[in-house]
């Protein structure tokens, strides 16, 4: 080995231009992050600042007044009702089907041609624009059955389905195989192994993924445009008659010249963000507490 005796080894950083380039690159990466944080914080602060002025129990439960009404009148009650109904229905449809689809991909058909095609197309489907889903449900349902909250739920459900499939699939993959083997060795059928061992083991991640899908669906506007025909009246029956939702109201009010309507839009926006945050935090809590598969 060549040892240069008598000379101290040079252990300092790379000199000159190399070091500078490296530093610049690091700075740029940090700047990138900052560039993203600043507008995000700004948006959140604005929504909170403008929204909190109008938020009150009355605001959350009162019916929707005409646009011209000042901020002190009325509220967005029907929109909250609509959001819960429609998103709730969509969840009831999309989550079970999504979980079942993921079970097919992971436990039954994954490696075959059909399995890989379905998996690939589920990924592709996550990229279908939400407005296209709205047009789809319009074409296939609304034209025959009129506008309704349910139509909106169908559109949101179509949006949620591939997302739930993908996230559930990831979670099922994480369940260690020895658990399955232990169940098979006791004489369980594949369905039983899946339902009694695999699903309970993965349930934390599955629920967390579903919560995030719900958070996204709650904020969607475009699919609802052509399916629920935004109205202002409260409609507790999602199966008949047009409906409204928080994002729909925000959209309508955003282009309104009246300050009252705009204020209501901010209030609705704050409500929507709070809902999304709560779901996001719930997802993290569920993940942290319920995912432990093996010793």
């Amino acid at each position, binding site marked *: 080995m060549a040892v240069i005796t008598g000379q101290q080894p040079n252990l300092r950083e790379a000199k000159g231009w*190399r*070091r500078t*380039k490296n530093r610049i*690159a*690091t700075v*740029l*990466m940090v*700047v*990138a*992050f900052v560039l*993203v944080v600043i507008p*995000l914080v700004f948006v*959140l602060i604005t*929504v909170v600042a403008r929204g909190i002025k109008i938020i009150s129990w009355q605001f959350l439960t009162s019916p929707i007044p005409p646009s011209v009404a000042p901020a002190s009148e009325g509220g967005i009650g029907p929109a909250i009702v609509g959001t819960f109904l429609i998103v709730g229905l969509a969840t009831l449809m999309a989550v079970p089907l999504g979980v*079942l*689809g993921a*079970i*097919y*991909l992971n*436990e039954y*058909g994954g490696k075959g041609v*059909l399995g890989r*095609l*379905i998996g690939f*197309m*589920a990924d*592709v*489907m996550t*990229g*279908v*624009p*939400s*407005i*296209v*889903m709205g*047009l*789809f449900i*319009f*074409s296939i349902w609304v034209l025959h059955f009129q506008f309704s909250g349910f139509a909106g739920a169908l559109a949101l459900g179509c949006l949620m389905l*591939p997302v739930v499939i993908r996230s559930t699939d990831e979670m099922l993959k994480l369940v260690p195989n020895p658990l399955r083997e232990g169940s098979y060795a006791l004489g369980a*059928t*594949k*369905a*039983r192994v899946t339902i009694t061992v695999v699903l309970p083991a993965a349930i934390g991640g599955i629920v967390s993924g579903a919560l995030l899908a719900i*958070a*996204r669906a709650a*904020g*969607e*506007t*475009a699919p609802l445009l*052509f399916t629920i025909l935004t109205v202002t009246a409260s409609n507790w029956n999602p199966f008949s008659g047009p409906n409204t939702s928080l*994002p729909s109201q*925000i*959209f309508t009010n*955003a282009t309104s010249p009246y300050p009252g309507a*705009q204020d209501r839009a*901010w209030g609705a926006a704050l409500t*929507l*963000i709070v809902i*999304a945050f709560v779901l996001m935090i719930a997802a993290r809590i569920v993940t942290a507490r319920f995912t432990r598969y093996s010793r």
Partner: protein
Amino acid sequence: MSTVTQQVGPAGTAGPTRPLSQRRPFGDRTFQVITLAAGLLVLVILVLIAFTTTQQAAPWFKAEGWGIFGKTWNPATNQFGALSFIYGTAITSAIAVVMAVPVSVGIALLLTEVVPYRWARPIVYVIDLLAVVPSVVWGLWGILVFVPWIAKIYAHIASGVAGIPVLDNLFGAPTSGASFFTAGIILAFMITPIVTSLSREVIATVPAIDKEGAYALGATRLEMIQGAVWPHSKGGIVGAVLLGLGRAMGETIAAALVIGSSATITSHLFAPGDSMPAVIANQFPEASGTFRAALIGLGVLLFAFTIIINVIARGIVGRSAEQGSA
């Protein structure tokens, strides 16, 4: 193999306590069928989307033929050429991608290479927060807060570049707060989370040995990234970019609120314009007949574009992830 004998043991011995032959339980087979049906639903829905929307848009295709790509969109005169919207979609998506990709890749590299583990979690939280802000809230903030503010900046820039050849064409008058560029900026914020998270996934598949090898040769971090990370991940990052592009193209509400809703084709980025999803959202309530067919037809075009982009993107991301970990 010998033939099956149903007897279960020579006489006198304790045989198996339960018989060995048993048809596959009904529940087991049913369950498998149900899961298969759920999986097939994905394919069924995609096919139905293509089918029903095309059917609804047929009157437009028939009426215009290749004129669907025409420049003029005027419901009053029954002219429905989509070119200006295609242009608008292309321009705003391009702006969004140009802005979002360096930022997203930068953040992805920050997370995977620079930041110690403890700091990574808060940064990821911030990105998740960014992803969870609904499109309509971006749009609301965009039109009520951002647009008035940036209109002044545009005006300044425009007067600054007035007369200069290329710059004037891009950034000169007419300017408007609600414009292609504004929509591009908002879209950039919205696609950053997905491009970042996919880039992270791709970079994570770079074998640690390669990275360590570069460091072991005395490379700086930047040099390691250039030498070890980039070659492995450039394919995947291209895929991530394409996915971001697809997302930007399809983004409706934020664009609808801040793009200016003016069906023009112009090189002036600060001028108001329109895009496919935006015009559908804005004009659908009043549309009927061929007008509505045209709007749905725009949706069909959008669907086709995004499907193609997504298929290519997923193909690239899928393959490059495999190669990276080989």
